[in-house]
């Protein structure tokens, strides 16, 4: 049991250290293709960290959006623009660092009041979570409590989200279309 906790801690520390190294490298490297590759690595690290923190659905979204879709989008942007970043003379670097440090310190100060990770007495575990965990098997009949919350207890909410995503996809298809495809030959006719 101790060994399990130890290896979980080790994975946490290793993932966070890798994320730190990757973040600094993303800020410093001027070759934008390398930056896109590194941001894909960053998303994979974040997704692994979410899995270790037991947020499997968040991890899945991070992997699909961060490592999958946004890599494709950024590569497409590179194809339209350039893959070299212009080196700007940045005289405001120290001001930016001070602002970042202040905001980071405020966030850390705000997180001091939060309940510990996995604390059973945390407000989030007291409200409706016991009802979901105890009764969802009898009420819904799905083995995964998260799925029964998303698909049944909050079914209307999820349906609204699906409508929004569907509308967005329709809009994107209308805007982009497939104009690059050659028009079909007129002589063939269409039945």
């Amino acid at each position: 049991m101790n060994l399990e906790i130890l290896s979980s801690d080790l994975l946490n520390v290793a993932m966070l250290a890798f994320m730190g190294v990757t973040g600094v490298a993303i800020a410093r490297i001027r070759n934008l293709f390398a930056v896109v590759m590194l941001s894909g690595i960053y998303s994979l690290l974040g997704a692994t960290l979410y899995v270790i923190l037991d947020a499997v659905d968040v991890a899945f979204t991070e992997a699909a959006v961060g490592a999958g879709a946004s890599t494709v989008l950024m590569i497409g942007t590179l194809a339209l623009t350039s893959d070299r970043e212009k080196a700007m003379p940045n005289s405001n670097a120290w001001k930016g660092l001070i602002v970042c440090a202040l905001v980071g310190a405020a966030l850390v100060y705000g997180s001091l009041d939060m309940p510990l990770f996995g604390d059973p007495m945390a407000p989030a575990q007291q409200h409706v979570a016991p009802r979901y965990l105890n009764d969802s098997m009898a009420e819904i009949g799905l083995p995964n409590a998260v799925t029964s919350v998303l698909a049944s207890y909050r079914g209307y909410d999820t349906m609204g989200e699906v409508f929004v995503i569907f509308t967005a996809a329709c809009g994107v298809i209308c805007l982009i279309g497939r104009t690059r495809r050659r028009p079909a030959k007129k002589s063939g006719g269409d039945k």
Partner: protein
Amino acid sequence: MMFTVAAVGVVVTMAMALARALIGPSVYSRILAVNVFGTLAVMLIAIYGFIDDRPEFLDLSIVYALINFIGTIAVTKYVTYADMGHGDDGDPAGDI
């Protein structure tokens, strides 16, 4: 114990792949580093599932492997054509 050793091995390999992505002089070494890193993330999630006595994580790692594949396809297409909207030249199979 066995799974912990495996996890340590995967983490060490991740560090090496990350170093290759950081140094990697050529484009291809960086593509390969990201691909290897995705595979290692898949393996790490699978191993962590067994460390934590939840082998259901294997499903999750399979989905990660699929996502990893999409990114690699897009990157190799960009490197080959330098254009994501490469036409299909009337080929009925599309631009695959």
